């Protein structure tokens, strides 16, 4: 990881000094364990703020949409796929971005790490040789990194950036033999009633803070459907019906565009596993259209494309 940091800073310094970009989007070290903060660096003498570690789960492509000028961005595999989606959807032009590709071995799940501390407060976290060492008050843990990856990272098969201008690290081996849809099958095997209860329990703590939506790179509508008033589609209270509507419809709106970056689950302040909605649609899109979001630079998402061979009967 140290080599990544060196490479990111070196590239940032060079790009800013040569004025090839106006700013570099990366992460700076967080103020609490398991967190880092996205940062916009504008001056070459500020690039030493930039860092990289296993707590960079937030998708930086979220900060690219409609951005003027030229910007460099550090992008993991999933982030780079979201950049492709942005390009397909005209949210930014290719010549505006300089992509610093960061091959990724998975990001750590801050919630699982916190839970492992069993109520004691972590003060610091270090990582080497595949182990994570957490220290705090009355707290010292030595954990296996692989056991604490974010859920989406554990099953990721696109760890290397699919688009980049330069890489800040060596490409990593892609995971093979990964079951990407175990969760989906588990839910599909439930009865209707069980499924209803499962999802109701899942979103019961939802505060309608919209962190999941706002951290998502493909949720960029100037007025989200939950904020429309003429007509008003969704109530704004925490009524379970309205909360269901929000989560179900958002999953549909990102279908075929979601890259399973896991930022939504990471952002949620109450730990809702919102990917339980999006994974199903991701699997369906794959089955129906053979499509994965953001892999091919000129292949539009299936739900905004019509092709004569499309299976839907109603459109024939």
């Amino acid at each position, binding site marked *: 990881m140290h080599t990544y940091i060196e490479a990111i800073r070196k590239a940032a310094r060079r790009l800013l000094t040569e004025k090839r970009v106006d700013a570099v989007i990366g992460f700076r070290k967080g103020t*609490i364990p398991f967190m880092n903060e*996205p940062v916009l660096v504008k001056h070459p003498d500020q690039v030493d703020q930039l860092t990289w570690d296993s707590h960079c789960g937030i998708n930086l492509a979220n900060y690219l949409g409609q951005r003027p000028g030229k910007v460099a961005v550090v992008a993991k595999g999933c982030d780079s796929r979201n950049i492709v989606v942005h390009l397909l959807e005209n949210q930014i032009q290719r010549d505006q971005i300089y992509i610093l590709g960061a091959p990724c071995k998975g990001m750590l799940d801050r919630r699982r790490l916190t839970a492992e501390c069993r109520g004691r*407060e972590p003060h610091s976290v270090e990582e080497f040789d595949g182990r994570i060492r957490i220290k705090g008050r009355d707290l010292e843990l030595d954990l296996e990194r692989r056991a604490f990856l974010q859920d989406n990272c554990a099953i990721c098969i696109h760890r290397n950036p699919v688009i980049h201008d330069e890489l800040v690290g060596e490409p990593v081996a892609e995971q093979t033999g990964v079951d990407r849809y175990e969760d989906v099958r588990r839910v599909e095997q439930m009865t209707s009633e069980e499924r209803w209860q499962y999802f109701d329990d899942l979103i019961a703590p939802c505060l309608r803070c919209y962190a999941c939506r706002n951290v998502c790179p493909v949720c960029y509508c100037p007025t989200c459907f939950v904020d429309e008033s003429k007509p008003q589609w969704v109530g704004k209270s*925490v009524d379970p019906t309205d909360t269901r509507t929000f989560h179900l419809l958002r999953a549909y709106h990102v279908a075929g565009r979601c890259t399973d970056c896991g930022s939504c689950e990471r952002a949620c302040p109450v730990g809702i596993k919102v990917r339980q909605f999006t994974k199903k649609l991701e699997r369906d899109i794959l089955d129906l259209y053979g499509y994965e979001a953001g892999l091919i630079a000129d292949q539009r998402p299936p739900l905004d494309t019509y092709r004569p061979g499309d299976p839907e009967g109603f459109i024939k």
Partner: protein
Amino acid sequence: MKEAYLAKDKLLPLVGLLMARYRVAAPVAVGDYHQFQILTQPEQLDLTYRNTRLSPKDLFHPQSEKLFRFSTAADDPDANILKEVERDQGPRLVFGIRPCDARALRLVDVNFDTADCQDPWWVERRRNTLLVGLGCTAPCATCFCSAVGSGPFDPGGLDLVLTELADGYAVAAASERGEALLADLDLLSALDQDRAAAAAEVQKTAAGTVARPFDPTPLGDKAMTELFQSPFWEEVAFSCINCGTCTFLCPTCWCFDIQDEVQKDAGVRLRNWDSCMFPLFTLHGSGHNPRQQKPQRVRQRFMHKFKYYIDKYGDGPACVGCGRCVQFCPVNIDIRQVVALMTARCVCPA
């Protein structure tokens, strides 16, 4: 009676006693976190917590609350006339609230309980609820209550304060209602000198461990427009995703929206928590939005808590240093850093 002692083995029986007289809200373990809930059994109580994820403000200001009902039926003589929704305003007691959260309720009182206008629901609930606080023996690294005028055993805002000792709790009255309650409770014994000294020691140690990441004095001194026009807001706002996490978890955020919802012939007017982080918050019907840009909204939150509130009410900031926003902001915007920027005597250009 001003102080007493509660042995640990008397804790649950005491809670049971209180539950016979009040609806008791207390921290309950829910998954990996704790939450204030109305207890149905004393055993639900779990005081082995640092703080709840959601603040107890929703006991006084529920996230969604029906205010009025009305009918829209054409043949109803009372159609379109609002009627207040019945609610149970019976006596309640919050057991195990942290001093920061109790102080937060005081800070919010000035908004809902004014000389010429009272929010009837907030005011009633505050009047009907006793607050029994559990002071913080081991404040978190993210706490900064002492920097904003509070402290881990701050009695202001509480009726009783508990200090955890080896085998029980020192109980101190912090208000007249607290004194009356103490006098009226069985299962307590007298607080002997040793235990009183031990409690004082615990409190002193705790106060010494709370970080003070900034000195709030410059906030009062600096001009409002000077802070407003400071150059660092763009930088502070960059990572913000304008979600409602900080505002919803914050014990001193009170902003709300009023919405009408109708199903067939029956409607309700309800209020929901709202957030200055949302663009819709200040959107005019004409389409004009005074806070169209993200940095303007981010600036509003910090300016409100650490400048406008100070100037308007002459009290400290509208923040109790509970640290929830620090722990839960999805992008790790750290309020301690932002306020340090606001209080800095000299801000170096980015």
